[in-house]
């Protein structure tokens, strides 16, 4: 019981880390980005390549995953995403599905369709026995990394000048422009940050979520769900949503394996019905 709960929380924290960027683009900037999972996948592949081909240790590969996907996000935002901020949701959906399809095909071409193995360092393997249950060390590590990232992020958004600019630009781009904030650059930086976090989540998640070219479409629903259920504009909304989802998914797979993914989709529809504006939603 405690073990399932713990695994669920670790899984949820991973969903939260990946979904944070989407929570900003979709929740606050009102851009439907179905290709967000592609950034997470890219982070995973960067990590795998760095480790297996160049012998970079796992912990050192994580910053690479973050930086590479953040750079990719910045470039794509400048070239493509930016032009569609004012477009209809249909255009955004088509564009981002197209991007997701291309990323799937590209990943298959580059790395093949197989699951990518990752070899964790010895000190992250194994289990700790406490309170009558076993806790995987890697999952403890995962929770710690996500907790640390969240605290850093909360401080960044809540206490720094950059954070204030982000909040202002996202809230009312016109007024922010009038105050002399370089809104375009803030959006690029925000998008890059979100993509980088997704990449970091993807790299951390190889062990938990797996990594193969179908990743962006397989987990698309989960990321969307965290954002939609969590509501826009806060950190705690997506956090709570991700934890609920993570625990439900792990518990369902553990206790009713024959139901499979059915449980999580059921939870999804129920949550959408019960909280149309998100758990801590504020109506736009």
């Amino acid at each position: 019981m405690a073990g399932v709960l713990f695994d669920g929380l670790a899984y949820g924290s991973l969903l939260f880390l990946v979904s944070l960027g989407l929570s900003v683009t979709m929740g606050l900037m009102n851009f439907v980005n179905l290709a967000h999972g592609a950034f997470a996948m890219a982070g995973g592949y960067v990590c795998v390549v760095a480790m297996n081909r160049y012998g970079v240790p796992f912990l050192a590969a994580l910053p690479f995953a973050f930086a590479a996907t953040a750079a990719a996000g910045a470039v794509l935002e400048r070239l493509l995403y930016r032009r569609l901020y004012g477009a209809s949701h249909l255009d955004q959906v088509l564009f981002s599905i197209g991007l997701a399809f291309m990323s799937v095909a590209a990943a298959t071409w580059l790395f093949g369709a197989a699951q990518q193995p990752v070899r964790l360092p010895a000190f992250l393997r194994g289990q700790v026995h406490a309170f009558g249950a076993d806790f995987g060390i890697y999952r403890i590590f995962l929770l710690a990394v996500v907790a640390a990232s969240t605290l850093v992020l909360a401080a960044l958004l809540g206490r720094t000048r950059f954070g204030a600019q982000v909040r202002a630009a996202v809230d009312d781009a016109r007024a922010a422009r009038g105050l002399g904030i370089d809104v375009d650059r803030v959006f690029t930086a925000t998008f890059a940050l979100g993509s980088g976090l997704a990449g970091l989540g993807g790299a951390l998640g190889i062990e938990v979520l797996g990594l193969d070219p179908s990743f962006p479409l397989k987990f698309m629903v989960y990321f969307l769900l965290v954002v939609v259920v969590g509501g826009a504009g806060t950190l705690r909304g997506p956090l709570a949503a991700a934890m609920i989802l993570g625990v439900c998914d792990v518990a369902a797979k553990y206790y009713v394996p024959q139901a499979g993914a059915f449980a999580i989709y059921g939870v999804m529809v129920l949550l959408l019905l019960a909280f149309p504006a998100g758990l801590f939603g504020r109506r736009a």
Partner: protein
Amino acid sequence: MSGAAPLASGRWRRAEIAFWLVPVACYFLFPGYRVLGSQVFIAALFALSLDLVLGYAGILSLGHAAYFGLGAYAAGLLAAHGWGEPLSGLVAAAAIAAAAGYLASFLVVRGEDLARLMVTLGLGLLLYEAANRGAGVTGGVDGLSGVSMDRLLGAFPFDLAGDTAYVYSLAVLFALFVFTRRLASSPFGLSLRAIRENRARMPAIGAPVRRRLVAAFTLGAAMAGVAGALLAQTTQFVGLDTLGFHRSAEVLIMLVLGGAGRLYGALIGTAVFMIAQDRLAELDPVYWQFWLGLLLVLLVFFARGGILGAAEAIARRAGRR
């Protein structure tokens, strides 16, 4: 979706009649492609049903395959359990898909774009997973086999060359197209278009927005169900992929490629898409997916309104000169 289409009068233009003569001519000109032809008509009917929902009512759906698959399984299961009469199978599939669409529409209609997208996506995945898990009834991943059809109208057997399938699906597509075309120029169709353009204003002139959208979604689901049933009957097999996300995405692509909100866009987009897919089938499916993605991105940036939208723009420019 600029609403550029004129308020169509009921009269058929010459170009339209010529358009419908093409598939008739193809029957005689390309006898080797009748199976592909029937697949194109079925997909076109599916795209047409999405046009009603998305192009006219403006409901963004990422799970339209749910109703296609429901219709396919309904018709397939009927035939697999001894009821092989095709036309009544179509009616039953339409009824079941319509009932599901009607129930779902209340969840779909009340939200904004984002919520609609999530609910349609979620319901689609839910149904897919249900069919996947209910292998005892649906055959699960292996698909539903043992579908055996009676002769169409008691006279025409479904053959491997696809002769019956070609004529059958073309006839059903044409009949439902005539119906949709009539519907689109009716007060009902006009009010759908008006809701799409300005939802807040419609209640002010006394239009029941909710009821109209529910009706449009239900009709769209019923038509998708008929398309699915046609596929099940003509191929005598139902695969799990009839319910899959890829099918929902593909039909969206076909519709947008041709141009949404124009009826003929659904047909032209489907034909172009399916024929291209057939030609490129020798390539690895992975590459096909890449080009598909690229096509989507290019469409969004350079050709909003799809093929018909581009044609209209060219015609307008030529007319101005």
